[in-house]
């Protein structure tokens, strides 16, 4: 509570300003020491009163109190909780500013069934007003995903403190995204059979991938095919195929694609993934669980099914990350999804891992981030209390690559502006 008051005072002291004055931070140089905080490493470990030493944007050490380092900038985090920066694993952040009614703000959904060459990163808008509202809730990295009808293109991971998309780029083209058709008759499908039609589309997709794979197997192409070129990294296992799939039939199809083409597959969505947890583990297929604050799929399902799905995956040994794709609150509740998962069977550290290290592993950036370990980028969040619990989760500081970022955002500024109007400050 004390620290909360501190936060309020801290930004009340700032002059009123528009987001346009929130500047990306300069490169971190020298040594930065964060002391006395409760360190949640993201690997399951909690260090009650630890020290993190950062040099030139990288974590040098994480551990017990050590001798003071001369010349270091010291941050005292006494009583606070320190976490790896949270990672939003699959999002249209920066591509879709206003969800509906404003077509001009949309750059997230391209036309056509086969768009492997489409790259999200080139449309990513670092000036999106949404970005800063995520940073102040501890989200420091995001995987920007193109939407579409079938094969939608490649995602890239960005860090959320940048002038341009080139600055923001953290890992380029880490994933290729695929939407599987809904293989289920719906009340709206009428006389048509979505299962048959869906399977037909998937067969066509597989034919496309077969040609792409053959193309990738050789360099002696008569004519360059941009779509096939874009798929080379996938077949070379330098890229994963992220498959949006929710129900068993879709997930089975995704596993089939992984086996047929000998590629690495990730399930995104995964609402029924708990029903196939063992199969997913056997095939080494990770899952990005979208919005666990969801209603159960079927009226007969356990009322708290989506809340406890993470615990079931954990128990089965499936690698999974939690993701926030909730469009009304615009992705800022990621840590609370983890909190819910912890209320329903995960340990708090497992839940934290699901939005940090697990996400980094799935996105292929765990060599650089996802946990507080020596050698990794200093992507760090400091909160007044338990980051997973909204009643005490206020973020007080955050660092991206060691750079202390400005936690102001449009919402705080408007709050400030109207407190000014009512002379509440």
């Amino acid at each position: 509570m004390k620290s909360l008051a501190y936060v309020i005072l801290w930004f009340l002291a700032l002059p009123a300003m528009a987001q346009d004055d929130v500047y990306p931070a300069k490169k971190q140089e020298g040594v930065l020491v964060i002391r006395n905080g409760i360190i949640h490493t993201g690997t399951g470990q909690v260090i009650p009163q630890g020290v993190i030493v950062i040099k030139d944007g990288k974590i040098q050490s994480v551990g017990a109190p050590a001798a003071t380092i001369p010349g270091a900038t010291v941050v005292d985090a006494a009583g606070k909780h320190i976490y790896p920066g949270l990672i939003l694993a699959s999002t249209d952040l920066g591509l879709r500013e206003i969800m509906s009614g404003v077509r001009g703000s949309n750059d997230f959904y391209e036309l056509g069934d086969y768009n492997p060459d489409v790259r999200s990163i080139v449309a990513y808008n670092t000036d999106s007003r949404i970005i800063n509202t995520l940073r102040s809730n501890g989200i420091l990295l995001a995987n920007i995903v193109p939407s579409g009808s079938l094969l939608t293109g490649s995602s890239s991971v960005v860090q959320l403190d940048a002038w341009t998309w080139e600055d923001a780029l953290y890992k380029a083209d880490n994933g290729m995204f695929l939407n599987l058709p809904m293989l289920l008759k719906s009340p709206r499908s009428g006389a048509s059979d979505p299962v048959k039609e869906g399977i037909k589309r998937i067969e066509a997709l597989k034919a496309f991938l077969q040609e792409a794979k053959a193309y990738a197997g050789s360099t002696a192409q008569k004519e360059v095919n941009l779509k096939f070129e874009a798929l080379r990294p996938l077949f070379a296992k330098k890229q994963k195929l992220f498959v949006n799939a929710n129900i068993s039939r879709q997930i089975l199809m995704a596993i089939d694609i992984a086996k047929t083409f000998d590629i690495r597959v990730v399930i995104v969505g995964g609402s029924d993934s708990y029903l196939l947890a063992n199969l997913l583990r056997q095939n080494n297929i990770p899952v990005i669980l979208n919005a666990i604050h969801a209603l159960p799929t079927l009226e007969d399902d356990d009322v708290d099914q989506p809340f406890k799905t993470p615990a079931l995956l954990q128990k089965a040994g499936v690698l999974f990350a939690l993701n926030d794709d909730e469009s009304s609150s615009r992705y800022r509740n990621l840590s609370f999804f983890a909190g819910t998962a912890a209320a329903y069977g995960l340990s708090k550290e497992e839940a934290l891992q699901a939005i940090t290290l697990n996400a980094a592993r799935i996105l292929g950036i765990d060599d650089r981030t996802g946990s507080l370990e020596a050698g990794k980028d200093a992507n760090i969040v400091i909160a007044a209390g338990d980051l997973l619990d909204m009643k005490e989760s206020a973020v007080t500081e955050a660092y991206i690559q060691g750079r202390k970022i400005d936690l102001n955002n449009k919402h705080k500024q408007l709050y400030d502006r109207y407190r000014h109007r009512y002379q509440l400050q």
Partner: protein
Amino acid sequence: MKKLLLLLGLLPGLIAVAQTTFPVNGVADPRSGSFALTNATIVKDPSTTIQNATLVIREGKIVSVGSGNIPPDAVVIDCKGKYIYPSLIDIYSDYGIAQRTVDLAFDYGRPQQFNSATKGAYNWNQAIKSEVNAADLFSTDDAKAQPLREMGFGTVLVHEKDGIARGTGLVATLSAKKENLAIIKERAAAFYSFKKGSSKQSYPTSMMGAVALLRQNYLDAQWYKTRPPKEGVNKTLEAWNALQSLPQIFETTDKWSGLRADGIGDEFGVQYIIKGGGDEYQRIREVAATKAPYIVSLNFPDAQKVEDPADARFIAWSDLAHWELAPTNPAAFEKAKIPFALTAADLKDTKAFWPNLRKAIQNGLSERAALEALTKTPASLLNIADKVGSLEPGYLANFLVTTGNLFAEKTSILENWIQGERYDINAKNSTELKGQYALAITEGNTVTQYQLEVKSNTLATVKTKEALTTKFSVDGSLVSISFSLKPTTKVIGTGQKDSVFENRQAGELVRLSGVNYGSSWQGVGANERGAPVSWVATLTTAAAVTKDSSRQTFVKPEAQMVYPFSIYGTAGLPQQETILIKNATVWTNEAGGRQEQTDVLVKAGKIAQVGKSLSAAGARVIDGTGKHLTPGIIDEHSHIATFSINEGAQSVTSEVRIGDNLNPDDINIYRQLSGGVTTSQILHGSANTIGGQSQLIKLRWGADAEGLKFKGADPFIKFALGENVKRTASTLGNNRYPDTRMGVYEVLNDAFQRAREYEKAKRSGDKTVRRDLELDALVEILDRKRFITCHSYVQSEILGLINVAEKYGFKVNTFTHILEGYKVADRIKQHGANVSTFSDWWAYKNEVKDAIPYNAALMHQLGLNVCINSDDAEMARRLNQEAAKTIRYGGVSEEDAFKMVTLNPAKALHIDNRVGSIKAGKDADLVLWSDNPLSIYARALYTLVDGAVYFDRQKDSGNQEHRAAERNRLIQKMLSAAKGGAPVVPAKPTAQVVLHCEDHEQADGVLAADAFEF
């Protein structure tokens, strides 16, 4: 005319002079139609059977039943061993009327049709078609009549099944005579439904709109009797008034809509005959309470294909169990002593009529009740019991001749007589052909002997030493046999394919056709070489009649009746208990604040005592140590538990009422109990400026629609402003006024000005004022008897509504959503409105681009009564967490934060004298949480409504196995039914209908469907 016929009937032998206007092309052929069916067992009516009796008919009417004299000119038919029944009546048939193709899909994104497309001096609404008379549309159709006659029907009530008010229906026989003679009652009944049918006029888009439209039409028709000059000629209202004296039949599609229809009838003094939806057994007590006679369908759901668990997964228990229990529906009516008629309507295949009727009998329907429901009851419902429905002198000669008890599996209907004319149904086919026959085929002088084993009229096998592939059929007296001399191991049967023969059997086929003379058949044919042959088949051994196969496999339904009809339903409603919760942290929301280690005693639905170390003899004690007890959560803005939410066809629809279409089966009621919600305000959607009347409910899972309602609360109404109202998201263009916030403001001004003028006119004592349901609700607002909850976002529109309200002298009770409320909080406070907002939503559309999560805190700091609402069936389960976000964003204190989902909404809804805090005397709507309720780790352990435990987390997880087992039992049963030869349809996933404001996408599972059912 009637007298004359009677006279003729009494004086057989006189020459009947049958005069008609129709000229004869040829020589007149007058006939008396005099027949005497003797030695029959005559079932005159369901309670009277006469043995060895004679039925005499003449001129299409019954002359005598029993031991009457046989007139000398009568054709005598010996019916020894046969039964005679009145032929059956179907009062929900569509025979003889070309039915319109119905376009049910209403596209929300499409421009609207505001006016009726019907040409002429008719009603403003195209779905009100009282002027339609089926008699003007009726034409006999022998091809359609035949299958109905084969089922045993003789009389039908037909109407055009199109629209909300459908005009009149007529009674006709299934005679092949001209329409003029087949019609026996021209205006027999009037028909209604909740479906617009072929009308593409936008209004109504919703169930509650259909209710409002009917109610308004009752009022309009009454008013029209005064011949109001401004209305001119309205042939629809004229017709509406003219048909009120007829039996009124209301088509419904499920148990709830039947109750809903009956409610409309009660309001206007009409007792409808209700055509049910087939699931009435799920609420038979409520159905019986309507006192309405019902028309009960024999259309039972088919088994679904559930071999693939990926398919079976998506079928809810409610559908699986309905498959098992639907055949008990007619028996449920009988048991509840509700008068009912049975109908073959809704059957996809008329052939399913008898098997399904027998299924209903297996499931408890008595044969007598079945016969009654197909004869006497429909006849008396239509006031034609003096003509049809039983066998009495002077009645129409509509009767069946059968081989035995009509309901027995082996019985065949031999003849169906309609208006004294005989229609052979099964005269020859009914002959039991089963048995062994010696088949001798003669070519020239060569005779070849075979054995013919006949299993049924379509299945037989010719045998030498081996069974030969055989195709066999009997059509009346004609017999056709073909078989292959080349044996095959293939299963023999006609199946669905036209041929049973394999290619390799070509050149080996013998084809025979002949005539059935009883125990010996003979005919000619061609052998495998094409040479002509003659043949004789003689019965050697008659086969014993095997029992009905479906009877053998009948397994009594085991599904328990639960309320509501959901796997989460319970056999009885939760009962009020005396409960003592000990030693909890009690969030009182009263002056005492949060009290540690405190006890709360609940008695007779109320909070009896709050204090330390309480005790109560006989109380169920719940240990609250380390746990938190709070008042139940109140959701100020919810859209659960209804069948429709938006009447979007007009900008002002204050006549519609959410309370008219509550859906007590909505699983979200139970899910929200699991999140500690006990009271919800169910609001109309935001598709128009002045939406419908709200309904406050308590989450009494298992109660019926009336039982859900929060009784005694002030009435509310929903208004909306901004993008939804001006239909910004309409993809195909908006043509409904308003298209701007300027227009929205004028819609409000106009509505209240009209209301004021209306009230003035009424007050002046002008008796010609038409009662207008829309304006009635607005007048209530002006009179401060109804209160507004207004969906609103940006500051301009908030101030706009405040201006209108102040101009017309009322107060806006609550601004809901109100995401820019923080910008004009001082003005809202000055006006005196409550506010109800989302904790952290934004950027989902342009008008919320300035929404901030500090909104609630800032408005709270300015002294407004702030609520946090859901507008989302999922989020409502976590409103405690949403309240906690106000701590995160703006530093609200814990107790104040929690009040935003309990006491504050209670105040905003004027029910804080009943709920919202923990205080002796208040309703015992309580939640026991595992943790501080504002913590994300808190889970509701118990949720009490009115002192009854409606959610018990431990019990809920304990029932998990039972739920899985019950699903499995039904799936297994379906599989074995399919194996036993029952028809099987592809698996049909159970849709979950999740309604919302049209405002945002929500995470509601893969099967969610919007329910814009019109």
